[in-house]
């Protein structure tokens, strides 16, 4: 999986948990919280959906890695690829 594909997977989750938001012009280097109305429960939603949809675990200590799309891609792409390699 490329970093762009990883960003698309995260955006698909955000589209479901924040259905009122316009995601057509997301800035990948800006904190998601600064672009959208996302609270702590929404971030737990992202963590839960990564677990349910992709089998990816994000330990609580790493929640900060989900701040922006860029940081998500940095952090999650190796996890996606490690999972892929095990299949």
């Amino acid at each position, binding site marked *: 999986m490329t970093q762009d594909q990883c960003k698309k997977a995260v955006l698909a989750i955000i589209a479901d*948990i*924040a*259905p*009122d938001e316009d995601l057509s012009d997301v800035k990948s280097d800006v904190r998601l919280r600064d672009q959208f*109305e996302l609270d702590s*429960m929404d971030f*737990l*939603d992202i963590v*839960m959906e990564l*677990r*349910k949809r992709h089998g990816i675990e994000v330990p609580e200590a790493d929640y900060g890695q989900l701040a922006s799309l860029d940081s998500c891609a940095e952090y999650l792409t190796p996890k996606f690829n490690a999972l892929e390699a095990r299949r």
Partner: protein
Amino acid sequence: MPQLSRIVITGVGLTAPNGNSLAEFRSNLLAGIAGVEFLEVRHMGMQPAGVCHFDPLKHQKRKEARVGTRAGSISIYCAREALADSGLDFAAFPKDRVGIYIGCTEHGNVETENEVHALSKFNNDVKFWSHYHNPRTVANNPAGETSLNLGVTGPAYTIGAACAAGNLGVIHAAQMLRLGEVDFALCGGVSESIGTFGIFAGFKSQGALASHPDPKKASRPFDLARNGIVVSEGGCLYALERLGDAQARGAKIHAEIAGYCVNSDASDYVLPNPERQAECMRKAIASAGMSPGDIHIVNTHATATPLGDIQECQAMAAVFGEGCPGTWINNTKSFIGHAMGAAGALELAGNLPSFDDLTVHPTINVDNLDPKCALPGLVLNRPRKADRVDAMLNNSFGMLGINSALIVKRFVP
């Protein structure tokens, strides 16, 4: 004891299985149009149920509707509609002086069942259990969601009172207004109970769940062939104010709270107690300073269980004797099923327009009146005109023996 403030109803917001506004609801009650349909219930297949068809997105963002509960959506819809009907300048009104008091039969069953069902798809591994479970299932959820939506910072909570809860929401709000705790109240009851198979299965196990090939005929209080309860969802919230406040802002007044009583059977978990029901009605009538003959409409609680309907009729006969010539008796569940925590509030709303049109909506689906339910004054299958409608008594009873009778009267300045 100082004289109590007069409390008036200045707004009504509702969603029922046969109407999403008071006008639509009333029109269908007079036209004999029921709102029961078949619904697929988990583990149980198709069951007759009262399903509401309001648009939650009229007053909620999509995210609010996704995160919240059905009961929350119903409450928000009803609260916003009641506010609009009241004509209050809500933007300018101090939000810490608003109270939200919502009656519920139960809350949390729907969300818990859904979560347990979802968890079973993940081998019951609790790391897949939703972080929304607790905020969705706390007993104050519907009132809390409404306070969030409206920005109300005054007291907002639910009142658990089984199927008497709709009446209790209104009674409690009147008490809080009289105590000066708040200056404006949104109150009544809601139900999301069609989302839980447990309610259907519980009534079935009790031998109290309705069945009929035609869902619109499934809820048939007082009919010889009645065979149980149609479970429904719905909601009805009122705007309540002290009379002086309502008059000062020139509010339209639907009716005045005249009296009420809440009591307990203390006799059985589920079986009603006609003696205590009669006592409840008598005390409510006395609290209004009235006699039985002053009540022109009695809306019965009857849910179409074989025994419960007879017992309420026994209680009615004890209070109203051989009949008061100007007292008419009806039942709204025959149209919409049993809306649980919403029932009392919705059923009162369906009768309020009688103050203006002097028409009593009927009890429908009575093909063969049970002789044990043949009360004088029953309005069957067709609406009828009344010479006078100055006061109405609304019965709502619930499990564990909670009884309520609420009386409202025509507003006369």
